[in-house]
């Protein structure tokens, strides 16, 4: 297992290198730079040039890339042009928000999606199946910003039960954290559960038709045991894949939800930096995001082995 993890970690290096190189090239191709944000609309070409020189963004792409990779090897992701802090600090201070949002919504989406999918598969072709899949489809189809605003108006404004936005760290106030994370996590979970529900349904339908399920039923095993212990366990591999992809997406920042609920997460940091052309934060933030994706994929691969001994043996 250790060898497997080491191999996967090593294979991540070229992936991360390509990601960072592509970011470099894309940001180089995009017109405009941070000097516009600093100088404003009335800046003269001389002022813009002066800002570019001060920040070193007038230097050739190759020189900047070599400097950046050199610093990266020393563990330095650079310094934000605008946030007055290092990129590492800027990303690290956003991570609790992103982890809170991703963690809670992933748990909710997985529970709701899996149960909905199982229900649909077990009551295949019934109104329960149709109803579950309509609910999943609604979750997939409705825009998350709209759903978020509806929840804000209902629970924040009309009923006054939950705050309309903002973030309270769990270390400061557990109840405050739960209150401020409930609506954004529910919004994200509702929009993400559709994929999990559909995958669970189709995977469960495949498994429920198999001989070992029929045997389990024939020997008089309780329906709940058949479904959750035998069928679901065998249907889990594709579900885990979907959950893994969802986790990667959520961990890299749910920009829209972060904006609607005024959450200072990693997604808003990166998008805001792109809008302001804060290159070091874009570069560093995307590298961290890509690393999270790679890490989640490794965890998913490890889970495959745990769920299915055949995969473990192949390794």
């Amino acid at each position, binding site marked *: 297992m250790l060898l497997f993890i080491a191999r996967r970690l090593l294979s991540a290096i070229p992936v991360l290198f390509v990601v960072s190189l592509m970011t470099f090239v894309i940001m180089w191709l995009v017109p405009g730079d941070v000097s*516009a944000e600093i100088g404003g609309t009335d800046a003269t070409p001389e002022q813009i040039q002066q800002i570019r020189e001060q920040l070193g963004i007038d230097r050739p792409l190759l020189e900047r890339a070599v400097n950046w990779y050199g610093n990266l090897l020393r563990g330095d992701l650079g310094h934000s042009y605008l946030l*007055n802090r290092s990129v590492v600090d*800027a990303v690290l201070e956003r991570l609790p928000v992103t982890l809170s949002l991703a963690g809670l919504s992933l748990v909710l989406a997985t529970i709701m999606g899996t149960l909905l999918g199982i229900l649909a598969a077990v009551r295949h072709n019934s109104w329960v199946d149709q109803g579950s899949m309509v609910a999943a489809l609604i979750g997939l189809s409705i825009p998350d910003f709209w759903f978020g605003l509806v929840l804000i108006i209902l629970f*924040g404004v009309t009923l006054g039960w939950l705050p*309309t936005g*903002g973030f309270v760290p769990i270390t400061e106030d557990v109840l405050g954290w739960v209150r401020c994370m409930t609506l954004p996590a529910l919004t994200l979970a509702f929009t993400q559960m559709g994929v999990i529900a559909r995958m669970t349904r189709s995977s469960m339908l495949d498994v429920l038709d198999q001989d070992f399920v029929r045997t389990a039923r024939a020997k008089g095993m309780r329906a709940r045991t058949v479904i959750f212990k035998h069928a679901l366990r065998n249907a889990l591999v594709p579900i885990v894949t979907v959950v893994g992809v969802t986790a990667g997406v959520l961990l890299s920042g749910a920009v829209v939800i972060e904006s609607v*609920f005024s959450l*200072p997460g990693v997604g808003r940091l990166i998008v805001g930096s792109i*809008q302001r052309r804060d290159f070091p934060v874009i570069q560093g933030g995307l590298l961290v995001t890509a690393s999270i994706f790679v890490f989640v994929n490794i965890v998913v691969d490890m889970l495959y082995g745990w769920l299915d001994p055949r995969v473990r043996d192949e390794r």
Partner: protein
Amino acid sequence: MTMLGTKRLTSFLRTLTMTSVLALAAVLPTGSAWAQVAGGELVVVQGSNPPSLDAMATSSGASRNINLNVYETLYGFDENVVPMPILAEGVNISEDGLTYVFPLRQGVKFHNGDEMKATDVKASLERYLKVGATPNLEPIEKIEVTGDYEVTLTMKRVTPTFLEAFSNPRSPAVIIPEEDINAEAGKTSLVGTGPYKITEYVPDSHVTLEKFADYTQDTRYAGPDGFGGKKTAYFDKVTFRIMPEPGAQVAALEAGEVDILDQIPVPAARRLANDANIKLYENLQWAFGTLILNANEPPTDNVKFREAVQVALNMEEIVGIASEGLFAANGGWAYPGTPYDVGDVGAADYYNKHDAEKAKALLAEAGYNNEPFTIITDNTIPFHGRAAVVIAEQLKAVGINVVINQVDFPTVLNLRMQDTGWNGWTLTMGIEPYLGPVAIVSTLTGKRPHFVKHDPELEALYQELITGATPEARKATFEKVQKRLYEYFGIIKLGDTGQMQASRANIEGFKTFRIPRVYDIWRAN
């Protein structure tokens, strides 16, 4: 007691209570004179992060909103945009106009507890010359400490408008401790002399200010006036929350989680107009909507073509749609009723004419042959994109081949720096009209006029404007400037656009201004 009796009693009590309230209202002083309540927290919402809390190093409005509650300048604008002393006692200008002596107020404390002295002022102004975001202090040749509480500035040349430039809040020449003199832009200790001090900044979340207990009030005045005056901090804590989504901002205000919205969408304001829990504030003189034409690129290099664009446009439609209805159709380059307002001089024959026939005739005269007319615009400021779409439709109707290139704001700022490749650029000018004619004309002259190609006549008028000895002389020059703008057609005034703000009904003392002043406001019990 019967039910009927209870109702009668209740009705009687209600009548008695109402009568008492009316009687009290007649006897007690009106308004805010007796009602100020100290303490508590105020939450103000704005849509974007302050790029910097180093006041002199940024010209961003999001920064200014916060910084001008924290830092102060020697001179600043009063409510009528006239320079007034704030940290200075006054100014003595030599007869030759080359020396400015600023005696300082004594006993003014910085947030770090030190007293502000002339050495701090010298250090701050010297730092401004290095990192300041505007060239406002450029006319200064020498800054000298001529006493513990006196600073003398020697000018390179006579600049009658220097005091206005020195008072400019755009990137204010704030006074900070001498220790920060060598701090790079954005890396000061965030210490000022204002009624609030900065305690925390979490980007994309909030900036927290705390009441400065040792704040030295300027007792020369009765109350706040513009950026100066006697300021009183009532709230113990003020939080500027950064909320990018307007819908969420409005919901937070309705839920009572926040107290003031620096900007509320006009449709939302209309919906809340009858809500007893919300107060709305309308500021019609907030910004100029403009369309800038590139005088260096065909077909807009031809003045007849630019004139055709001017006469083709229906400004009420453009600004009405772009501002969601909060606007004034004003072709003048100063707000009505302000000191430099010269009415519709030059504008009468050209502004808001939507004269398709005349436009077509001018296009024929210009020899226009269906060349593309490219408008660059952005989606960051909704007014820009919306105005571009309406302008495009109106110009297509007179036969102009309009192409809209909508990108993000940094890209627009990059494109407009190119001499070619664009013809029109939609831009709202916010702070410039507030600052007055010099600020507006400076963007159209100098090293890089907005419309790319220099207009020698306007350049000469700018020099006449900045050297005009008296306000009357400068106003006379500005009249010529406005006339010239309606001959050159390098920039087209679309109209005045407003800003709508909102607060909870229990917030007292708040007045709409260039920044949300968080002092001299309080929460009613």
